[in-house]
């Protein structure tokens, strides 16, 4: 009989913090700048330069720690992790080993079986990101851009508490939501502002000792994470079944090929020769500092859901979807604040927005239309300046390019024709051109009027209020 195995997974999640400047210097962290234009002697490791901690980094790290039920370390400091690689101009990364800022936390996730499980957080530490290496396809060399060097990260190290890809995804989604609600990061996997390394081992079901684990890198989406977990579980079981040993190593996942390969044997912690960084002074976290950060913690999802129900009276299902993303909740609240019509805003999000997201494969974090423009679109339909099918058309353009609907409707001449004279003329023409339908209508076929409305709308190029057309037709017939 085949043996049963259990997969044991722990995650190291790196999150890029949403600060304006780097962790130890006043260089901008803005994305997409020309290579090496956001650098200085500190983040390029020039001798004699001195790092100074960005207060916002500490506050974000503490706020994430509080939101994930961690103990906040009252006396924390930074250490140097030594290694040589061109993306690391100092030859060490400033990180935290001995006294990380947060410890012993955990978040609750819902399991497939419908239960609740706590995934422990071993620690959260602050550290700096490395530069970016670009591999030159044409020449046998690599190019280095240090704009990312010194961008602040927190690394959230979980306990090996997860047992399946589903639990891993649930944990990551939970972390992402908490951090987004805090405004500490946008947590985009594709863009690398959230990166998860998967530590995985397998053992026979019922065993108490852990098996040898590997660390998997280069996972850029939830799908890639699921596939990598399945692939690595199978690879390790195959090794064990064929009497071989799992080697402790770092592996790189190639999602296109659906397989991983060894990057380097995992260096032991002592090989990084950690020692306290003498350039940075220790951090003493006071009760007052914690109280201030606690007081500033935003409204989290559960509180928001409760408030939406009481304040806006929109359906539970809508609340569930809208609050599942901080970004969507922000759009909802801002648009509602402008137009005062929560139900209409919610409708646009629940119907057209979800439809277009699915159709165009757009992630909720990448929604581009502004709440102001959505409120304007609602105002235009309320004023009957455009009809609902034109509104949908305009929304589709807003979804792609965030156009101002007032200007767009004006420019494209999409305004409903409210000139009754012109409309009456068209209706009369349609009646004259469709004697059969007119006769059908008079013979009691109510449906015939629908055809005539359609013909009129077509003649008006969609720019008429269908209700008005209907009324006018009935009048004239």
């Amino acid at each position, binding site marked *: 009989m085949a043996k049963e195995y259990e997969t044991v997974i722990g995650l190291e999640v790196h999150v890029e913090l949403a*600060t*304006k*400047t780097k962790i130890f*210097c*006043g*260089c*901008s962290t803005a994305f997409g700048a*020309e*290579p*090496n*234009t*956001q*650098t*200085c002697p500190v983040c*390029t490791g020039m001798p004699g330069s001195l790092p*100074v*901690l*960005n*207060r*916002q*980094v*500490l506050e974000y790290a503490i706020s994430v720690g509080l939101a994930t039920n961690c103990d906040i370390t009252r006396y924390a*400091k930074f250490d140097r992790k030594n290694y*040589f*690689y*061109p993306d690391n101009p100092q030859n060490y990364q400033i990180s935290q080993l001995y*006294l990380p800022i947060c410890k012993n936390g955990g978040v609750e996730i819902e399991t497939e079986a419908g239960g609740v499980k706590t995934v422990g957080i071993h620690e959260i530490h602050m550290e700096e990101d490395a530069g970016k*290496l*670009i*591999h*030159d396809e044409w020449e*046998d*060399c*690599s*190019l*280095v*851009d*240090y704009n990312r060097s010194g961008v602040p990260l927190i690394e959230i190290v979980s306990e090996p508490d997860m047992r399946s890809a589903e639990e891993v995804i649930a944990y990551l989604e939970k972390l992402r939501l908490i951090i987004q609600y805090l405004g500490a990061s946008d947590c985009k996997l594709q863009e690398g502002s959230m990166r998860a390394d998967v530590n995985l081992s397998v053992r026979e079901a019922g065993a108490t000792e852990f098996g040898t684990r590997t660390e998997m890198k280069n996972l850029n989406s939830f799908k890639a994470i699921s596939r990598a977990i399945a692939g690595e579980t199978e690879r390790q079981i195959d090794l064990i079944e064929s009497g071989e040993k799992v080697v402790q190593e770092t592996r790189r996942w190639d999602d296109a090929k659906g397989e991983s390969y060894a990057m380097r044997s995992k*260096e032991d912690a002592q*090989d990084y*020769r950690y020692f*306290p960084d*003498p350039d940075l*002074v*220790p*951090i*003493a976290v006071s009760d007052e500092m914690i109280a201030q950060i606690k007081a500033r913690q935003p409204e989290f999802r559960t509180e928001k859901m409760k408030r939406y129900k009481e304040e806006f009276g929109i359906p539970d299902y809508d609340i569930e979807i809208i609050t599942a993303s901080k970004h969507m909740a922000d759009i909802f609240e801002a648009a509602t604040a402008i137009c005062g019509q929560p139900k209409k805003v919610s409708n646009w999000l629940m119907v057209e927005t979800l439809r277009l997201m699915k159709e165009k494969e757009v992630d909720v974090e990448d929604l581009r239309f502004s709440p102001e423009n959505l409120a304007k679109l609602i105002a235009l339909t309320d004023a009957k300046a455009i009809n609902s099918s034109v509104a949908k058309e305009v929304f589709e353009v807003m979804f792609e390019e965030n156009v101002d609907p007032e200007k767009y409707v004006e420019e494209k001449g999409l305004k409903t024709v409210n000139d009754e004279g012109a409309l009456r003329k068209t209706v009369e023409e349609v009646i004259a051109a469709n004697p059969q339908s007119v006769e059908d209508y008079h013979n009691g076929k109510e449906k015939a009027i629908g055809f005539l409305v359609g013909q009129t709308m077509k003649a008006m190029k969609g720019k008429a209020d269908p209700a008005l057309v209907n009324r006018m037709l009935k009048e004239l017939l």
Partner: protein
Amino acid sequence: MANIISDETIEYVGILAKLELSDAEKEQAKSDMGKMLDYIDKLGELDTEGVEPMSHVFPVQNVFREDTVTNGDTREELLANAPEQKDGMFVVPKTFA
């Protein structure tokens, strides 16, 4: 010398430090490292029971900067240090197969 550094150790430390040492340099390094470890052992003889580990030499803590951009583009100065450059970046030997 109480601490004897093996050939394997010096080889491994050389790999970590990305250094290529000649045989003579290896012998010298083995002897130097042995002496350093002897010195650390000497320090270890001191009774530090009840003494808090020191993390910094100055009695200073909580030095922060505000999250405001203060640095501009100094790419030209930075790249002046590059032995070789291309497209505004440092050129280094290929790092990835």
